[in-house]
């Protein structure tokens, strides 16, 4: 029983925080919202140099052999700084399934390039029904000799514009299957979606897109198991990111409350403000513990579906409460686009919706409880 980080983990955390305070100011975050790419190739390269993209892969793939807890620690710092970019889509939603389910060749091809920062990947899963379950996949993959032809409309594909490869989920004759698709393949059409977080999610239309059979990831027809893993890992990754964000919201809020004087005293001395902050802290602690517990279970190879759903449901709802309190305490100034508060508020909603909000995960929990 020990809820502390190890020395190495503390070091990872400190390094990441120092680095990002330097390299990812909020001005960069805003700039990325405006730009087409939505991420900074320079920052991406530097993060890769620090080994972050390879953190969870073994050394044979140029990785650092970290575990899921390490990843969550890193993501927490990224969330604190609101690092924009395709880190989770590349590393968690794509790299991890390739590592666990790819052929040796696929692993050899993709993982070192991910680790070195040369490769950006993303996942094309959701369709217009926005269902997270198997029935939500209607995109078709037709077997034609040595190829598959994929057709369908995918929504909320993050960073599709800058991705080199897309993992596309489609329905082959045998069932749900994952395909590794070069992002610039003929027949792929992108339309950017304008989201609350301005975080570069795309509609990706696949119109008779051809990929060789060798590009199947995992077994043909047996893809939904992998998707469930990807959904869990990605949900958990977003929890890690958001926990870091919320911690920063609380720090900003406490420090503003101690500085802002109204009625001749710091507003942080008003009991109602104090209690709001105390509640924020409890919300965040709950999110952090649930997230770390789930990550620890994943890192131990233990079943963690219920713990992940608990983390995601709680973190999503806590993030709204925390950001709302942060805004209430910042009052007027928090509303302006040159103040950081609103960035966190908008991203919290995007995170909450990604890979399932509360009701979705509570239903999973109910199932896990045997109901």
């Amino acid at each position, binding site marked *: 029983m020990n809820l502390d980080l190890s020395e190495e983990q503390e070091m990872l955390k400190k390094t990441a925080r120092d680095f990002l305070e330097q390299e990812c100011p909020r001005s960069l975050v805003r700039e990325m919202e405006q730009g087409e790419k939505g991420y900074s190739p320079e920052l991406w390269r530097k993060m890769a140099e620090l080994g972050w993209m390879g953190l969870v892969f073994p050394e044979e793939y140029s990785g650092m052999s970290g575990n899921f807890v390490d990843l969550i620690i890193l993501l927490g710092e990224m969330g604190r700084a609101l690092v924009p970019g395709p880190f989770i889509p590349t590393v968690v939603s794509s790299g991890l399934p390739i590592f666990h389910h790819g052929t040796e060749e696929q692993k050899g091809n993709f993982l070192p390039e991910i680790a070195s920062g040369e490769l950006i990947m993303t996942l094309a899963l959701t369709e217009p029904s926005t269902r997270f379950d198997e029935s939500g996949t209607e995109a078709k993959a037709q077997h034609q000799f040595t190829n598959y032809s994929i057709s369908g409309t995918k929504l909320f594909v993050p960073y599709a514009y800058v991705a080199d490869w897309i993992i596309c989920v489609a329905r082959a004759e045998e069932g749900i299957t994952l395909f590794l698709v070069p992002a610039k393949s003929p027949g792929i059409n992108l339309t950017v*979606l304008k989201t609350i977080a301005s975080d570069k999610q795309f509609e990706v239309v696949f119109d008779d897109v051809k990929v060789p059979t060798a590009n199947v990831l995992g077994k043909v027809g047996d893809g939904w198991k992998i998707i469930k893993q990807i959904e869990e890992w990605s949900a958990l990754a977003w929890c890690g990111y958001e926990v870091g964000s919320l911690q920063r919201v609380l720090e900003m809020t406490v420090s503003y409350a101690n500085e802002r004087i109204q009625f001749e005293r710091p507003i942080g001395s008003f009991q109602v403000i104090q209690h709001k902050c105390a509640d924020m802290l409890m919300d965040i602690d709950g999110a952090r513990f649930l997230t770390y517990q789930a990550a620890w279970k994943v890192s131990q190879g233990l079943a963690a579906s219920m713990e992940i759903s608990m983390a995601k449901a709680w973190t999503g709802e806590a993030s709204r409460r925390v950001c709302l309190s942060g805004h209430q305490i910042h009052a007027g100034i928090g509303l302006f686009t040159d103040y950081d508060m609103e960035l966190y508020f908008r991203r919290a909603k995007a995170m909450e919706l990604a890979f399932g909000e509360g009701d979705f995960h509570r239903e999973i929990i109910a199932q896990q409880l045997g109901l």
Partner: protein
Amino acid sequence: MDFEFSPEEKKFKQEVHQFFQSEPELCAGFMEEWHGGEGFGPKTWALLRKLGEKHWLTPTWPKKYGGLDLPYVYYCIIQEEMSYWIGLYACIGTAMAGPVILKCGTEEQKDFYLPRIARGEIEFCLGYSEPQAGSDLANLQLRAEDKGDYYLLNGQKTFNTRCHFAQYHWLAARTSSEGPKYRGISLFIVDLKTPGISITPLMTFSGERTNDVFYDDVKVPKSSLVGEPGMGFYYIMEALAYERVTPVGAYQRLFEQLLEYIKESGKGSDPVIRQKIAQLAIELEVCKLFTLNVVSAQSKGIIPVYEANAAKIFITETEQRLANTVVNIFGLRGQLQRDSKWNVLNGMFEFIYRQSLTELIMRGTSEILRNVIAQRGLGLKRR
């Protein structure tokens, strides 16, 4: 006890309703300008003038200043319809500045400002907040020095939302630093084109423009003063009293649209969503009743201080919950904005999810208003 309007009132409501219904273009144009964040534009002015022609901007005012001498409830009916059709329900000129001028202004001020307000030709901008005077309004520092022939104004206002399109600043300034802070404040009407005034945009994250306003040796005539010097804080409070009703028409319309979507999308068969929609319906009903209660009191000439605060808190907090609940019901598509492909109901709920934060803070934060309810409404001791 009567929870409905009288037959005449209902008839009038119907008339206003039909007016807006018959002006879809102006309404749409208005919404575009207003939600676009820049505030009043040509469509808005055109609509206001049309309303002015009917004297519906100021129905309770005396006829000589462009009103209809109607009872207060008619004003509320118009507000509800405006809220329902265009989201906005009041101008500063009609709702706050005008009534104070009517009560405390000079004859010249009345003749000069009131008819133009009533006709929908001019708008005022509230000039209260300063960087160090938000909730603690009495702490405002913008100085107005009496120079004999004129006042000399120096200082900064912030969060002054309509300054870039209004003609006049409804300005609270410090004319004295003696005595209690709130006694040294006076109220002025300042033409925003006066030399020395500069206006800098501030953008909120719901895309609404508001402004910093800087006064740098601005000279205004003595006739700019409203009422007695040093009484500004009281006038401000009084003006607030006129503007205590928070109409809920806009939310009712949103809810109607939402309901239709829920039915059509098939989500209405989900028991969990049914519970949520029903809960929103209850909360909106409470909003409506809180507003009716304020209207009912004001109609009798009672100033319902705690009731109006309760309405403002409950309505704005409901708006935030409403937006959050609906965005989540929409799922991933809930995050899509007005101008995005695949958005739901034109992204209105995403917009409100952001914009509601402004509502929670404007016109008194929920914290300050709860203090007032406790101390003035319930008589809890201050110390």
